[in-house]
């Protein structure tokens, strides 16, 4: 499949840049932008301050850490220079491994530069600061949701079915999770609700894609849209007259003793809600399952070459059903996680996360580990775009909110370059 399709997408002699070159060039551009916009864009004497105090839900600060005060212009110029250096290194040495890690490092520096710039003051006498810990905590929340979505995609697409209905599964999970939490005040039951509704939607998608071999993109888009309409309908028909069914609350944080007290890392990694720990476990489990077990080998065979899998007695259709339903379950739970983060259901709650998760899946090259990198990147963008306003950035929020979407377009058009999807991804399988 890849061979034949490559024929089509390329007409003139092959002048396409390699993936690593694109990444390198992008990093150089990013570094130049950082240095120009945040370094030279800041007044020479302005300073920035980072604090690291953990802030818990009640807004109290359990303990203090020192603050870090930096000269804005120099720091941002330095960050820019480092990103450029990273890009040049990629272009120069053409390393074969850890490209994403390098790009991730560049992205981290870029985010730091934004924050440095956002928290700058006009002179050394004034005080303005960014709490780095709360930025990280804030970025993790959307990243968790996105990871659920992308993992759902990994499960489906590794078996050869495109799941473009993640957005709908998110919404259904959030709706049911909110409903159950409002009634029972129990996140375990809410999660169970997400599992059931996700499985149900996964089964419907699988049914259309496998039993009737509908076009998977059409079926997915229509199914997602149907669920979103249904959510809006039920919101008006049920939740508005009976507000007691939409009275949930955010999931409580579960702090791991001792580890949770580590500065910075503690609040970010060990003082999160259950959905965070669950997704970490899922990433490890799916990664292990796909690449180390018999189950994973068979799933990947089904996604790459279903006929070959069938010829050794693997039931292609059944494998796909199971995986699409499992994917639905993961996305459904992701929907509950989305509600658990926001604390209340509203019709527009998903705001495109399902589709960003899809892009993250491609960016992460259909691997659980890659998906995590993508989710962190996009999650941080979402958080910053939503919160930069509080840091008094003199740019319209609408423009900032575009950031994750524009990054996604960049990712899909440039970075992934010649990344290979599972060869049979999206192609209906027919038994002879």
């Amino acid at each position, binding site marked *: 499949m890849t061979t034949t399709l*490559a024929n089509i997408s390329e007409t003139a*002699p092959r002048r396409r840049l390699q993936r690593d070159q694109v990444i390198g060039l992008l990093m150089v551009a990013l570094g130049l932008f950082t240095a120009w916009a945040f370094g030279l864009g800041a007044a020479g004497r302005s300073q920035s301050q980072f604090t690291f105090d953990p802030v818990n839900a009640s807004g109290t600060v359990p303990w203090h850490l020192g603050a870090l005060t930096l000269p804005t212009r120099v720091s941002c110029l330095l960050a820019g220079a480092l990103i450029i250096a990273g890009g040049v290194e990629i272009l120069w040495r053409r390393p074969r491994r850890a490209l994403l890690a390098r790009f991730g490092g560049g992205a981290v520096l870029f985010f730091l530069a934004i924050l440095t710039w956002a928290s700058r003051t006009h002179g050394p006498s004034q005080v303005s600061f960014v709490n780095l810990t709360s930025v990280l905590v804030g970025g993790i929340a959307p990243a968790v949701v996105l990871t659920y979505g992308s993992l759902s995609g990994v499960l489906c697409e590794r078996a050869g079915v495109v799941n473009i209905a993640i957005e709908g599964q998110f919404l259904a999970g959030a709706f049911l999770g909110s409903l159950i939490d409002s009634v029972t005040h129990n996140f375990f039951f809410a999660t169970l609700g997400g599992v059931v509704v996700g499985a149900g939607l996964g089964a419907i998608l699988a049914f259309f894609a496998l039993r009737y071999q509908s076009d998977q993109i059409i079926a997915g888009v229509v199914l997602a849209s149907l669920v979103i309409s249904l959510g809006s309908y039920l919101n008006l028909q049920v939740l508005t007259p009976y507000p007691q069914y939409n009275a949930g609350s955010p999931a409580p944080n579960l702090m791991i003793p001792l580890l949770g007290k580590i500065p910075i890392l503690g609040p970010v990694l060990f003082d999160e809600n259950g959905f965070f720990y669950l997704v970490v476990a899922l990433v490890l489990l799916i990664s292990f399952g796909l690449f180390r077990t018999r189950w994973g080998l068979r799933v990947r065979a089904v996604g790459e070459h279903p006929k070959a899998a069938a010829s050794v007695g693997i039931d292609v259709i059944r494998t796909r059903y199971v995986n699409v339903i499992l994917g639905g379950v993961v996305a459904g739970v992701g929907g509950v996680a989305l509600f658990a983060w926001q604390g209340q259901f509203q019709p527009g709650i998903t705001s495109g996360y399902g589709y960003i998760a899809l892009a993250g899946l491609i960016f992460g090259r259909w691997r659980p580990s890659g998906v995590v990198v993508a989710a962190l990147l996009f999650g941080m963008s979402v958080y910053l775009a939503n919160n930069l306003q509080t840091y008094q950035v003199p740019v319209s929020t609408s423009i900032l909110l575009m950031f994750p979407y524009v990054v996604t377009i960049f990712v899909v058009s440039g970075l992934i370059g010649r990344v290979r999807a599972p060869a049979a991804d999206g192609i209906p399988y027919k038994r002879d």
Partner: protein
Amino acid sequence: MRVELRGITKRFGTFTANDQISLTVEPGQIHCLLGENGAGKSTLMNVLFGLLRPDEGQILIDGEPVTFANSGEAVRRGIGMVHQHFMLVPVFSVAENVVLGFEPTKSFNRLDRLRARESIHEASQRFGLEVDPDAIVEELPVGIQQRVEILKALNHDAQLLILDEPTAVLTPQEIDALIGIMRSLKDAGKSILFISHKLREVREVSDVITVIRQGRVVGTAEPTDSETQLASLMVGRDVSLTVTKEAHEAGASRLEIRDLVVRDDRGVAVVDGVSLDVRAGEIVALAGVQGNGQTELVEALAGVRPVESGTITLDGRDITNATPREILDAGLGHVPEDRQRDGLVLSMSVADNLVLNTPRATPYARRGSRRRSEVRRNAEERIRDFDIRTESPEAPVSSLSGGNQQKVILARELSRPLKVLVAAQPTRGLDVGSIEYVHRQIVETRNAGQGVVIISSELDEVLALGDRVAVMHHGKIMGVVAPSTSRETIGLLMAGVVLEEVAGA
């Protein structure tokens, strides 16, 4: 293991692919199923392998009737199959492919890669099938991939091995190696069902030959029977493999290929410094085992694959890396190898397909608007001239038989003003009548003074049609010889032996 097929019948709609077929494979026997393309061999094997369910008849293993719901069950009963199109996952390693479906595992369902590697090692030694278990399949040459397929079947403990057209993609030397492997498997007590339409190999290796034609068993033969006898059984009449071809004087050079280098999708230079001339009024036949760069060479000529270096000149005009449009307009006719994929739009009408690559040419369009009456008039003319059997010009081309589909393509190309015709595998999968017709058309094109390039993996076709025969191996032209050259010499060239060495031998 003794496997018996009794009265197997398989129908697809009104078409009967297998009609009451019975045959028996004894243990330690190489049993050949001989038949033309489309005779029903593959259908029968898919029935035996559990991929299709027979409408009538039964399968017996050691006298006991069995039914297979899927191929997994067939595998479990000791039947292994090496498919014509390999059933290997390209991105998996050899070991992963071999164990797929029968994976050794450790705790937690983990793959036991060590044991997988060991069992491959053992099997490779026993049957002389050397492969590196950790190699990625898509990076291996075809011959080795086939070994992986055989290993896979053996790893599943196959007692009966079905080999579906195993030699189609191999060089003569690889075929020899395969025959060696088949013999050692036979010595180890395995039975082999060998499907082929190539008489020479069949005679060389088989113990018993069953010939099928149009879904029926038409007879059994002995390997000692002559090729002519086998061939007449197979096609049902005395065949003449030679094409009646008048001598014809070749004219000026029409197509000049110089030091051409073309890469495949993986970046391998599969056409590696090819130079070739085609003159007006001659047929240059390009022989070679599939996958030695012929496909990519044709794609480069047609402009759908970029040329890395070198030049292509068509009648004095440089068409290197020109667009397909420019090349078509410059007078290159192209009969693509995969006609349904590259040559036709199956859902569109015969009339539209007849102007597929000239939709904007006069008189079929004027100022961006199509003239449907002209398109239809053209279609009626072509259908008459080329004897295309279709209900109407408006019928979708998918409703035509394979031979008539090929006629549509030929009619389209030959009715344009051409300088050179490039036809890749022009008769693949066609019935005998259509083959003769296509050959006739090609010879007439030559007689009309055009240059013709034929690419074919059928040596008989190459020798019958070509005025000169160029042999390709690993992206290089090994030599250009007269069609009267012996098959052995051409076989050596196809295997990559350089012409001087051949001459010296």
